[in-house]
């Protein structure tokens, strides 16, 4: 009983409750509108269904949101370059794999190309980290550089063409592994989340990041290397963008430098916010961001399921997002607290009477 209470306190304490409620609401609305929403079927040896689709499609977003969470927590700023960086990573991977034209022959081993792609993403992250942590440039401005220049760099590699990899094995990462019924991205996202969680848990990095995010000066005096920690957060975000880039390119077995990961950075930032994290830095919850990412994808998928067209989609999404974010604002929270207090006191009053 006490344990439950403690658990409940923890959940409500970090307002994980709220993101969860959002997700549940989105799902319930779906269930009403689309009765077969939760149906999962087996077709050609793989699983199909809206739920699988949501989890599958949200994978990149989850991975990016994990990196974004740490960036926000440590520096109180956002990394708006992650979409462009994932395009860079994808371009590096495919270019090193097949060269500057669509092809079905690998020049180097597939695994090596993936490593190169992820390295490219990580290097971009290091660049951002250097600007923010060492040169003290505003995160938004610092990452704006790669936000605009990143796609250009990818274009240089692809020379403006969409490069296709016509080989079955290239599709594994973004679709299905032979004989496995669950989409591969779900595994990758799970691995990234679990690994990050373990690293934060098994080292004191999580505490350091929060400390630096809350008070950089005080953190320095207690012996933390604030710059290094912020730098690492950006490096990690670039690393995550690299992995996301691998999934994105594999899904469509091609790289389109103009459109790969377009606008996904906004969804990633939103995921962090919906997850109950303060965009001002400091305390964070990875689980919250993951739930946030799934919520956003669930919203997108369900709007499609309700036959909203792609060009109308942003409007509906915006409305829902406004509601979610407004509900978390301190002012609304205070109203809710007041209401709760009034309820509690009237209950207490009754007890006294009885």
């Amino acid at each position, binding site marked *: 009983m006490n344990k439950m209470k403690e658990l409940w306190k923890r959940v409500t304490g970090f307002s994980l409750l709220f993101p969860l409620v959002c997700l549940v609401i989105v799902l319930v609305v779906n269930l009403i509108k689309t009765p077969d929403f939760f149906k999962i079927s087996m077709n050609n040896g793989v699983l199909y269904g809206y739920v699988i689709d949501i989890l599958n499609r949200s994978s990149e977003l989850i991975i990016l949101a994990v990196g974004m969470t740490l960036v926000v927590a440590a520096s109180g700023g956002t990394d708006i370059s992650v979409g462009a960086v994932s395009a860079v990573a994808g371009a590096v991977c495919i270019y090193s794999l097949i060269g500057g034209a669509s092809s079905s022959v690998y020049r180097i081993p597939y695994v090596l190309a993936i490593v190169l792609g992820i390295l490219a993403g990580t290097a971009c992250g290091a660049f951002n980290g250097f600007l923010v942590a060492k040169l003290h440039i505003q995160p938004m401005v610092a990452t704006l550089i790669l936000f605009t220049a990143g796609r250009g760099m990818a274009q240089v590699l692809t020379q403006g063409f969409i490069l296709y990899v016509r080989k079955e094995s290239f599709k594994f990462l973004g679709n299905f592994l032979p004989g496995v019924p669950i989409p591969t991205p779900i595994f990758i996202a799970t691995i990234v989340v679990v690994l990050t969680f373990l690293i934060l848990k098994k080292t004191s990095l999580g505490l350091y990041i929060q400390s630096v995010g809350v*008070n950089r*000066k*005080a953190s*320095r*005096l*207690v012996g933390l290397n604030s710059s290094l920690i912020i730098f690492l957060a950006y490096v990690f975000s670039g690393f995550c963008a690299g992995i996301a880039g691998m999934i994105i390119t594999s899904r469509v077995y091609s790289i389109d430098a103009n459109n790969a990961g377009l606008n996904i950075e906004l969804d990633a930032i939103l995921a962090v916010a919906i997850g109950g994290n303060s965009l001002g830095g400091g305390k964070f919850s990875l689980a919250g961001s993951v739930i946030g990412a799934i919520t956003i994808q669930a919203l997108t998928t369900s709007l499609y399921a309700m036959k909203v067209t792609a060009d109308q989609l942003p409007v509906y999404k915006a409305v829902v997002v406004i509601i979610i974010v407004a509900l978390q604002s301190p002012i609304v929270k205070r109203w809710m607290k007041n209401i709760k207090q009034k309820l509690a006191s009237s209950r207490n009053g009754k007890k006294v009477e009885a």
Partner: protein
Amino acid sequence: MMNENKPLLTMRHITKTFPGVKALSNVDFTLRAGEIHALMGENGAGKSTLIKVLTGVEEMETGEIYLEGIDHPIINRSPQEAQAIGISTVYQEINLCPNLSVAENIYIGREPKKFGRIDWKTMNKKSSELLKNLNIMIDVTKPLSNFSVAIQQMVAIARAVDISSKVLILDEPTSSLDEQEVEKLFLVMRKLKESGIGIIFVTHFLEQVYKICDRITVLRNGCLVGEYETEKLPSVELVELMIGKEIEDLAKLSKEENDEENNEKKEIVIDAKGLGHTGTIHPFDLKIHKGEVIGLSGLLGSGRSELARAIYGADKPDQGELYFKEKKLQINTPLDALKSGMAYLPENRKEEGIIEDLSVRENIIIALQARRGMFKVISRKEQEEFADKFIDLLQIKTSSRDVPVKQLSGGNQQKVILGRWLLTNPDFLILDEPTRGIDVGTKTEIQKLVLKFSEEGKTILFISSEIDEMLRVCNKIAVLRDRKKVSELKGDQLSQSNIMKAIAGGDTKDE
């Protein structure tokens, strides 16, 4: 006397609960026009909360507030609203804008205008004058963050004094001021009092209360103990009312008469040779022996904190050498100092001390964790033990070890940071105003702790604006003037008058 004036401000049955804490229960408070009214109580008694409720920073649950001239109960929803009806406040934690200039901070929200635009010239001139009244001569166009906590406090006071029209509230305004500045402040307060303004004054310094206050209201654990006339309440009784029990004479704290000869023979822990940091402290020599408590004294801006910062590497020294336990030490960052066995409690609690969103537990263990490195995680169980140990030792008043430290009262936050550094068990401990904002009872406890530490062979560098306190704990006092170390006093030379002379520039002999 003006004391018999009718009430200016009346607060009745004020109640305020925070999760897990009843901060105020059914408190009454009355302020009359033209009086200075002390609000006293231990750390966490509810003084700041009462003020925050009055000025609209916090919402009260029940209670009524009346202000003279307004015929219905007032409710302030924000400090701006309070200001608009004539109540101005200096909060315990300075909340000005460090990036704005001093003048902007004083006039923010009420800038003098000329042809619809901000009249910078007038603003700067008026600000200078206001500060000059408080004896502060500084360039008001410089950003506030360029100045020490004490000056920042004076700026906040200047702003509030200038705004106040009926009620002026000062929540521990003197905590980092030295005697001269306190005197100046008192002059200004007396002037305001004569013009009929009521002043609420929160402080932990008894002698200040007896010097300037007409009445005293005492709070204990969120409850009203009573209202008294200062003249009729001896200070011993006042302390008893505050802590709720009889006490041994707190003033008598025996310093182990540390044998000077003996000390000099002991190992040298700190040996600074021409150490300096351009712009903050001129090169200085300083030798500290094992087990010594050495004090730093000097006026505001004399460089006492800056000297300490150079040793710890908070400002990386760019001149001279530092030997720590007879080994040359290259300090690039505070972490180097921490790892070699130093600890540094900074002066500015809010900006450099507390990590406000982290819990009390995390705030206590963070320095030890940083020292151990990120792969040697202190287990949750150990963390809880450490936290509980210091909550107990320093009597930190908190509803749980897991609440964010920002929810603690000012004095209790200070204790948390002190605990943080004691936990690292340093060989050399720098304490810059360690008892700032700490109540009388606990202050003695902390001074005792410092002495006990030195008996255990630890070395301490102690900075305080209170000369009394310095005399109580220090074996030796180094005096600074104009960012230079000018002399050292020890043994028989340690007396209030000698120190004052040295600070002011008298001719005490240099070492």
